[in-house]
């Protein structure tokens, strides 16, 4: 049994207290675990929901400032809880269901999207010891779970019984599956070097001054760039946001969704963006490693820098066309990442930069 280890003062005390309480009331062991994990999940879930709401606000602010506007300003200081209010508004809104929808598929699509986006955080190291479960196949698990998103998008596109949505769903299936390859292969270069799939192992191998993979090894920067490009595509963001290309497909797969179902897609999109940034921070930028500051500050700082980069790109570049997108993935990114992987293998074999 993998036991959760939380090492931040208050939170850790809280979990210890909960554990002792469960033991003292004499619950059987499996039930203790269930309750402990539920409490953990609730914590991570709450944290991520907050992050997602923050990211929505942040994106709006960044977009506004790039465009010399104010962005949200009304609700709170510089509109800081605008997105909370928006979420509450979406909760209250009527859930419009198309008459011709495929009932089951239409209902489950946002749920799967939401769950897939959140379950990646089971083995995301937020800081030293701040991990729900340090799976030995950590990064593989994250990649596998986030790919579930594509099924939900396809379901949303199909279930809506709308041509725009269908086109969006088909596009997202093609796109996410294509970009999964360069994304995983560019990560593989690092994994090969570390020799472990565990997120904690990857981070710990980068401890020390300038031991981050982006600086340490020659294949690091290339892998980082290819990963970032693939990650933007994976998170369905401009310039690779063709599944929901507003000017072509109105809103793509979520065109028929409204109310809370739409909010689930929307939040999941931002969670995905945070996920890919967190992976980049963990694998290439040294994760929680860093001097002086607490480990989780370093992790959040690096991740949010990545998010910022993604947002800047989002508001600057035009969108690729669907065929150019596929061409770029298969004719450029895949060869480059594979060449990079071979380079990493050779370097590993020769034993340089150990």
């Amino acid at each position, binding site marked *: 049994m993998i036991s959760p280890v939380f090492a931040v003062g208050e939170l850790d005390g809280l979990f210890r207290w909960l554990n002792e309480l469960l033991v003292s009331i004499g619950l059987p062991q499996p039930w203790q675990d269930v309750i402990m994990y539920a409490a953990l999940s609730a914590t991570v879930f709450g944290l991520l929901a907050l992050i997602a709401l923050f990211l929505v606000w942040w994106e709006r602010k960044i977009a506004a400032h790039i465009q*010399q506007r104010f962005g949200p300003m009304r609700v709170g200081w510089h509109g800081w809880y605008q997105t909370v209010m928006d979420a509450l508004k979406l909760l209250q809104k009527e859930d419009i269901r198309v008459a011709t929808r495929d009932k089951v598929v239409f209902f489950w699509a946002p749920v799967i999207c939401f769950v897939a986006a959140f379950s990646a955080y089971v083995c995301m190291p937020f800081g030293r010891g701040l991990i729900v479960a340090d799976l030995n196949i950590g990064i593989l698990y994250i990649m596998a779970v986030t790919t579930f998103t594509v099924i939900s998008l396809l379901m949303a596109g199909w279930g809506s019984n709308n041509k725009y949505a269908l086109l969006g769903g088909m596009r997202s299936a093609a796109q996410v599956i294509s970009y999964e390859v360069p994304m995983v292969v560019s990560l593989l270069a690092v994994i090969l070097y570390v020799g472990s799939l565990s997120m904690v192992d990857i981070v710990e191998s980068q401890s020390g001054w300038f031991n981050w993979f982006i600086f340490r090894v020659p294949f690091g920067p290339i892998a980082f760039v290819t990963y970032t490009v693939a990650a933007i595509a994976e998170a369905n963001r401009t310039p690779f946001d063709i599944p929901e290309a507003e000017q072509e497909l109105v809103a793509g797969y979520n065109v028929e969704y409204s109310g809370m179902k739409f909010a689930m897609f929307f939040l999941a999109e931002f969670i995905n963006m945070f996920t890919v940034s967190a992976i980049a921070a963990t694998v290439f930028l040294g994760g929680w490693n860093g001097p002086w500051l607490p480990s989780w500050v370093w992790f959040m700082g690096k991740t949010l820098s990545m998010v910022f980069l993604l947002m*800047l790109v989002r508001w600057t570049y035009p969108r690729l066309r669907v065929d150019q997108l596929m061409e770029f993935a298969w004719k450029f990114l895949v060869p480059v990442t594979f060449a990079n992987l071979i380079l990493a293998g050779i370097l590993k074999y020769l034993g340089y930069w150990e």
Partner: protein
Amino acid sequence: MDLISHIKNLLLGLGIAGKHLGRHAITIQYPEQRYDIPEGSRGIVVLLSDKETGELNCTACELCMRACPTAAIRIDSHRDENKRKVLDQFIVDNALCCFCGLCEEACNFSALKMATKYEFSTLDKDDLTWDVKKLQEVGLDVDYVDTRKKKKPKPAKPVSDKQASTEPAAPAKDNTETAAEEKPPVADETVADKPADTATEAADTPVAEPQPQPATDVTTPTEPTEEKPPPSPEAPTETPVEKAIPKTEDKKEGDQTDASA
């Protein structure tokens, strides 16, 4: 090499976007901050009052009504015992108004102006139709240049209706003004009477042209006049109209110099 120049261009774009990130916003927070509306901006139509007496400048000459391309203005008036026109009602339908400013230019008496006000949103479309009271009230604090004749109106002398009809616009204004002073506008003649009034007395009105309402496809209260008024009154009124033309021009020139000063 293509790839390098592409990357350079991509970074250049990012740089330009990033450069703007630190700049100050050019938009304003509307209800708190306000845009400075330049003088002469065309906003809501308001009726102007005399700066001294507080009476409306309007003489019910209906020039603005005729100039309006969307028939947003409706004027109801009646004749008092001296056959002078008395303004009963002046209605502007702001929902129809297209803010072209033709009414303002047509007016010879500084009676109405497109003020620099622009906020009149309501929840009810009917609230956009403003009557004379509301128009006067909104126009009270509007500054304007009085281009009317400076001399005070002569004491009301009994003018025979035949004389009045041959006289050009200016005396008619004086008459109506004094009439307005004596007697507040009372709606003693109903709206329904009005078309008949216009049709029969068109020849007597100095500035009125027996032209049918320009906006024939928009429902107006003067719709009945659509049945072509007899062409005969047009000939006699031709003279006063011709006289009114240089007046319009003069007034306009004056306006411009004032605005630019």
